C-alpha cells in the first residue's frame, strides 16, 4: 500500500472553506480534495472534479449480468433439463423468453448494483475494515477540511502553503498520511 503525506486545513464553516479554496486556487495552489459532513452544492465545480465514470461501469456490469443470466437460463431450462411448466414451449429460448424476462431483469439489476457498490468501495478505498479516509473525526460532525498535496504543489514550500491556509481562516492545520494506492 502506497501512503502519501497530505496537508490539511480544518474549517468550521462551509462558506469559509469554499472561499478559502478559491483564494488558494487564485494563488496557483492545487487543492486536492475537500471533506464535509454533508454534500455542498457546487463544491465539485469549485474543486474542478471530473464527472464520475461509475455510470459507465454500471452499464457494463448490467450487460455482464444480462449475458450471464441468458447463458445460464438457456443452459438450465432449455439445454440441460427442459421443464414442462403449464405446457409452455420449452424447446427454444426465444419461444419461452417471456417467462425468463423477470429472472434476466433481476440478475441484471443484481450485477449492476453489486458491481457498482464494490467499484465504489474500491475506488474510494473504503472497503470494509480499511482505515477511515477522512483526516479528522470532526469532518463527519461539524467541521470541514481541505486537502493539499505538498508534492503536487512543489512550486510552493510547505511553510508557504501553511501560511496561505492560515490567511483563509482555518481553525487548525495538520499533516497526516493516508493510503493513496493499493499497490
Amino acid at each position, binding site marked *: 500500500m502506497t501512503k502519501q503525506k497530505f496537508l490539511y486545513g480544518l474549517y468550521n464553516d462551509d462558506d469559509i472553506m469554499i472561499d478559502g479554496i478559491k483564494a488558494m486556487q487564485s494563488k496557483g495552489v492545487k487543492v486536492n480534495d475537500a471533506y464535509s459532513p454533508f454534500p455542498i452544492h457546487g463544491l*465539485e*465545480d469549485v474543486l474542478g472534479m471530473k464527472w464520475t465514470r461509475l*455510470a459507465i461501469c454500471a452499464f457494463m456490469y448490467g450487460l455482464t449480468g444480462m449475458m450471464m443470466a441468458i447463458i445460464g437460463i438457456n443452459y438450465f431450462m432449455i439445454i440441460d433439463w427442459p421443464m414442462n411448466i403449464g405446457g*409452455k414451449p420449452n424447446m427454444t429460448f426465444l419461444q419461452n423468453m*417471456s*417467462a425468463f424476462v*423477470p429472472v434476466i431483469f433481476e440478475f441484471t439489476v443484481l450485477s449492476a448494483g453489486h458491481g457498482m457498490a464494490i467499484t465504489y468501495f474500491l475506488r474510494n478505498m473504503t472497503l470494509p475494515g480499511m482505515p477511515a479516509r477522512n483526516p479528522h473525526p470532526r469532518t463527519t460532525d461539524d467541521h470541514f477540511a481541505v486537502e493539499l498535496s505538498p508534492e503536487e504543489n512543489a512550486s510552493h514550500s510547505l511553510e508557504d502553503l501553511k501560511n496561505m491556509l492560515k490567511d483563509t481562516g482555518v481553525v487548525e492545520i495538520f499533516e497526516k498520511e493516508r493510503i493513496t494506492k493499493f499497490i
Partner: protein
Amino acid sequence: MGIGVLSLIYGIIDPSITGQRIWASTLINGWFFFGIGLTATFFIAVSAAAQAGWGVVFKRIFEAVSMFVPVGAGLMLLVILASAFGMNHLYHWMHAPGDYLIEGKAAYLNIPFWIGRTVVFLAVYVLMTLMFRKRSLQEDATGDTVGFFKRNRVFSAIFLIFFGYTSVIASWDWLMSLDPHWFSTLYGWYIFSGMWISGMIMVLLLTLWLKSKGYLPEVNPSHIHDMGKWVFGVSFLWTYLWFSQFMLIWYSNIPEEVTYYMARIEDYTVPYFAMVLINFIIPMLLLMSKDMKKHAGILSFVCVIIFFGHWMDVFFLVTPGTMKDEGVIGIFEIGFMLGYLGLFLFVVFNALTKAPLMVKHHALLDESLHHHIN
C-alpha cells in the same frame, strides 16, 4: 387541423372507408389527445401536492397543454354519446343481447350508468383543470404566493384522489369495454402510464421548440435533463406495466384472458410487437446517458418516435376490439391523427399566447430559477 377536416371528408366520400373506421379513429385520437391534456393537469396537481420546486418554469406549458382538456372532453363526449345512441358499433356490449358473459356484467355495463359516469368524470376533469388555470393567473395578478401555495396543495390532493380512482374506471369504461368479454386488473395503470408518457413527451417537445425559438430563457439544461429523466422513467413504467399484463396472461393461458392477446398477435403480429419494442428500446438506449438527456436534438428525435409509438399503442387498444382484423393504418388514419394534432396544437398555442410564458409569482419560483443538478 385542415388535414383532419380533409381526411374526414375523404373518409366520408371514399366508400371503402367504413363508418366504423371513422368512429374508431375518433375514439383513438380523442382518447390519445385528451389523455395528453389530462396528464398535464395531473402533473400540475402532482407538482403542487408534492411541493416540487424544479418544475415551476414549466408551469405555463403544462397549463397550456391542460387547456386541451375541455376541448378533448367535448370530443370524447361526442364519441361516447354517439355510441350510446346507436350511431356506431364501437362498443360491442351495447349490441349483444343474450350474451351470457355480458349480461352478467349488466349491473355495471349498462348505458345510463355508463353515460352518467362519463359525464361526471369529464365534468370534474374540466372544472378542476379550469380552476387550476384560473388560480394560476390569479396568483400572478395578486402575488399572494403563500395563500395560493397552501390552498393549491389541498385542491391538488382532492384532484389526485379523484383522478386516481376515476382514471382507472374511465379506462375500463372507454377502452377496456371495447373487449367486453375480457378483463384485466392491471389495465387502468397501463392506460395511465401510456397517457402519462405521451403527455410528458408533448410538454418536453413544446419546451424544446419554444426554447429553440428563443423563448423560455429561464429553462436551463438542468430542467431539460429532468424532463428527459421523466420521459426515460415513464417509458420504463409503461413497458413494465405492458409486460406485466402480457406475461401473466401469457403464462396462465386462461381462454377468457388470452382472447385479448390472440386478437392482437394473430392479426397484427409485426406492428404490435414492433410498437412495444420501439417504445422500450429507443428511449432506453438513447436516453440512458446523462448527456443524451440534455441534448435537444436527440431528445426531440426520441420523443417524436415514441410519440407515434404511443399513438400506435392507443391504436392497438381500440382497433382489435372495434374493427376485428380489418384495422389498417392508412392515409385516412394518419390524416385524422394529424388533424387532431393540429387542433390540439391550435388550442395549446392559443393558451400559450394568453399568459406570459413564465409565472410571475409562485412560492417556489426562485428555487426553480436556480435549479441546478450535476
